[in-house]
């Protein structure tokens, strides 16, 4: 079976923190239009890898490609511009902005986000603003947060903040979404709804790369799974294959 060019690929990326190689010559690929899971024991380097893909850290060695373009070393906002977004595992909402504002601010390429437009107010700016306002409210409805649209983001509960993280990520109109434990702390009903939302979005062409510890979610949602241990991938394949992989079992039991 010939593989199409992967949407995202890392080639031997390495990142060291204080003498410890968090990510160690990691090479992997994510295919377009899939929900790919990333599993592994704590400390395997999964979050660090995500932070490098999104541009918060630069890899010391190796490269990262998105589509045909190299994105390693680019500032985060450039990478988001190209269609990659990451949600934070521990939600980092903008606390003193309202829930809706948290979403609005994530929408890309707003013509109003410069001081000249702010002062002189071209009509284009405010038309765009109204458009994304509607979009934002729809997105909030999807995650059932719309009654709280005007509340300060800091007033949300933990689970609600995770929903906000997801909604905010989706607002950036991404092609690839890096999710870091997206449903941890969310109630089961809403979790089901979200996961079916992810499937719908995938059907529409979005790609998800998801760090997840909940094996049920991994088994039911993911098309492919990559297992990481000590900074590099140790197994790759369908969820069933990876779950049975000896190296993976060893890593989890030993870690």
């Amino acid at each position, binding site marked *: 079976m010939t593989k199409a060019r992967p949407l995202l690929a890392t080639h031997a990326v390495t990142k060291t923190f204080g003498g410890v190689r968090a990510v160690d010559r990691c090479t992997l690929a994510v295919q377009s239009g899939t929900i790919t899971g990333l599993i592994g024991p704590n400390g395997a380097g999964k979050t660090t890898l995500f932070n490098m893909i999104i*541009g918060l850290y630069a890899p010391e060695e190796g490269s990262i490609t998105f589509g045909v373009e190299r994105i390693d070393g680019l500032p985060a906002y450039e990478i988001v511009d190209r269609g990659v977004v990451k949600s934070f595992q521990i939600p980092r909402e903008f*606390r*003193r902005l309202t829930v809706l504002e948290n979403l609005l601010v994530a929408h890309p390429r707003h013509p109003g986000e*410069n*001081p000249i437009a702010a*002062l002189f107010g*071209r*009509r284009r700016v405010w038309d765009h*603003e*109204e458009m994304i306002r509607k979009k934002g409210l729809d997105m909030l409805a999807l995650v059932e947060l719309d009654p709280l649209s005007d509340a300060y983001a800091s007033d949300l509960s933990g689970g609600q903040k995770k929903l906000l993280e997801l909604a905010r990520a989706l607002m950036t109109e991404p092609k690839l979404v890096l999710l870091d434990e997206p449903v941890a702390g969310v109630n089961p009903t809403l979790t089901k709804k979200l996961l079916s939302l992810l499937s719908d979005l995938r059907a529409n062409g979005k790609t998800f790369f998801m760090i997840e510890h909940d094996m049920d979610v991994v088994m039911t949602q993911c098309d492919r799974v990559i297992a990481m241990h000590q900074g590099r991938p140790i197994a790759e394949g369908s969820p069933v294959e990876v779950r049975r992989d000896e190296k993976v079992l060893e890593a989890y039991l030993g870690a």
Partner: protein
Amino acid sequence: MAELTGVVADVSRFLAYFAIWGILAIALNMQLGQAGLYNAGIVGFWGIGAYAAAMVVTDPVAAGIATPGHWGIDQSVFPRIAGVSTSFAFGVVVAGIAAAVLAFFIAIPTLRLRADYFAIATLGLGEITMRVFVKNLQGVTGGVYGFGGIPRPFEFGFETYKTELSYFGLVAVALLVIFLAVERMSRSPWGRALRTVREDEDAAQAFGKDTFFLKLQSFVFGAFLMGVSGALFAFWLRGVFPPENQFTPQDTFTVWVMVIIGGMGNNRGVLLGAWVFLFLEYVTVRLPSWIDIPQAFAIKIFYFRLIAIGVILILIILFRPQGLLPEKKHVAKRPRWVLNW
């Protein structure tokens, strides 16, 4: 009658003074309240604005026996509208631009520093600007002597109350225009983006904001306003005098006090902060002449006021860090007039 005009002059002078500091507070609010930039070099921008404007509206003076002289512009090049020289308008604009340019150069190396380092760096740079350069460029700035003789836009000779009142009118208009403009900018998507930088810079970057550029914009624009305030201050004082007693770090921290006590992020709040600070000063300075107080005590009231301000600042930081008038929930509303281009 003479007493009344005296009072009018005095009050007008005070109100103009308040407006000048109000503009400073609004400018700092843009940098600090909105973008989270702890600018401790305010006097650098204020001072540059003052000196720049002073030079634009006065003729150059050559070095002489009692004075090192200073730069200026031959006033006859400025056209007059209805008898008023346009040099003042130019002076204000040049002042703003000078401060903005200074801010641009200061910003590039300092914006990457964390808040407290940024404060120390800007403090140092502000001091360098005023203490080292301005004070020592003898022929340019008048050196340690500074220079006086800065005219007002509207002069009424002996009728000081008219001069003061007219100047207050001018400055009040400036404050109003600036307040409306900055409020509008705060409620815009740009203001919203700035606030994300303040809240969590890494998260802002992770969701597509070019935080460096946003900080730069806020810093430079705020500095422009500080320069404008400096110009208005030079006209108010009718002189610029070197930074032994003027343009000291104390002035910077005064603006901090106004913004933090008044309400960070709220333009009305910072104006309230400015008012409280200056009104207290006005009252304590004039108190001995209003009521009978033992002489020794009269002088000390001045210092008690500052002690009280320090106490209030600490209490606010401890128990009400959002200030007297906290930042309101922003609603990005389409403003009433919008350019269609």
